[in-house]
């Protein structure tokens, strides 16, 4: 996260933001930072950035969000999506950030295959790390 707040045209029109918008189909500027998504996220305690903070960094065009752990902790449970009063599909934004990493060949999660799993767990987990 940048130490100082910099709002400049080149940040707001950053190419990565256009990609997030295209992959997610969402308008990050619709978010008014109410925090409802974060309040209801049952995985927030494991995230380095809460869902509303992810949205805020995107609004500021801060690409440090691309290296955040939060999207990889997100289980795509869609609690935020059904609760956002502005209709922002936050889970799709998390997916877009994951996809931007994956499509560059980066997979910042580790599979812990310490036991047998049902195939839906394995297929689900692998689909989330497949570009």
């Amino acid at each position, binding site marked *: 996260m940048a130490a100082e707040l910099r709002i400049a045209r080149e940040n707001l029109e950053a190419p990565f933001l256009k990609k997030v918008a*295209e*992959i*997610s*189909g969402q308008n990050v500027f619709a978010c008014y930072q109410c925090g409802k998504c974060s309040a209801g996220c*049952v*995985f927030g305690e*494991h995230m380095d950035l809460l869902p509303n903070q992810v949205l805020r960094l995107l609004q500021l065009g801060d690409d440090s969000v691309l290296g955040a752990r939060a999207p*990889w*902790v997100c*289980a*795509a*449970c*869609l*609690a935020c*999506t*059904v*609760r956002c009063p502005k209709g922002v*599909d936050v*889970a*799709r934004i998390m*997916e*877009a950030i994951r*996809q931007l990493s994956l499509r560059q060949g980066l997979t910042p*999660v*580790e*599979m*812990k*295959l*310490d*036991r047998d*799993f*049902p*195939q*839906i*767990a*394995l*297929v*689900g*987990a692998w*689909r*989330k790390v497949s570009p």
Partner: protein
Amino acid sequence: MTRLLYFPGCALKDQAKEYEVATLAALAALGYEVQELPRWNCCGTVYALAQDDLMRHVAPVRNLIRVQEAGEDKLLTLCAMCYNTLSRSTHFVQNPENLRRLNAFMDEEEDYAGGVRVLHLLELLSGIGPANLAKAVKRDLSALRIGAYYGCTLLRPREVAVDDPEKPEIMEKILAALGATPVAFPERVECCGAYLTVTKPEAVRLRVGSILLSAAQNGAELLVTACPLCHFNLRERRPLGAPKLPVFYVGEVLAWALGAKPIPEEIARAMGVRG
């Protein structure tokens, strides 16, 4: 007999076999002739959230084409995850441009024309109605205090929700009609951690502890679910010290009530019902 086309999915042929066996026996008792969808394939497991990725929508839509080929317009699912991916794909292809692109992409298949409705077991039972369900009940389950755990995929996103995503009652109503004693608890709609069980098992363990505690504190003695992944996590990722609630599939309780399957001895004994 009412004929119904049914999509099992991989889990119901393997580690959730008991869900399929019990439900099919119960549906036969209710007068349904359930037929497995010919040549079904994996539903995709998790719905593709990326807008720009057509490839990931192929698997669920192929199944809808199989329904069309069978001359039907309804598809029954038991697994909550299959329900979610298949049902969402029916919404995806409601956009004519998405449908056109997918049909062009799958050139070895007949075109999908749209119009298949994916139905979850809970919706089917709810449609049968509490009075008709109650009439078919053969066993007294009133001593069973059951917490219905919905998880995510039956309730979210809103367009595929089988009931109000925040305050669902559909499972409780069905359990009550079957003569059991449903117990609603706040965590019934919150995620168990799903496939994070492979990448972040410690986070899943915390979730499962919280769900079990919420259920037990509200008086549940047994949990039911419709999701094989929730079922796995609730049983296998229970943290030390969390309440040890037995976990079953909703179709199993249905089969117990209708006399289509025996109640497991340990449940019958522990809860004072006749097996």
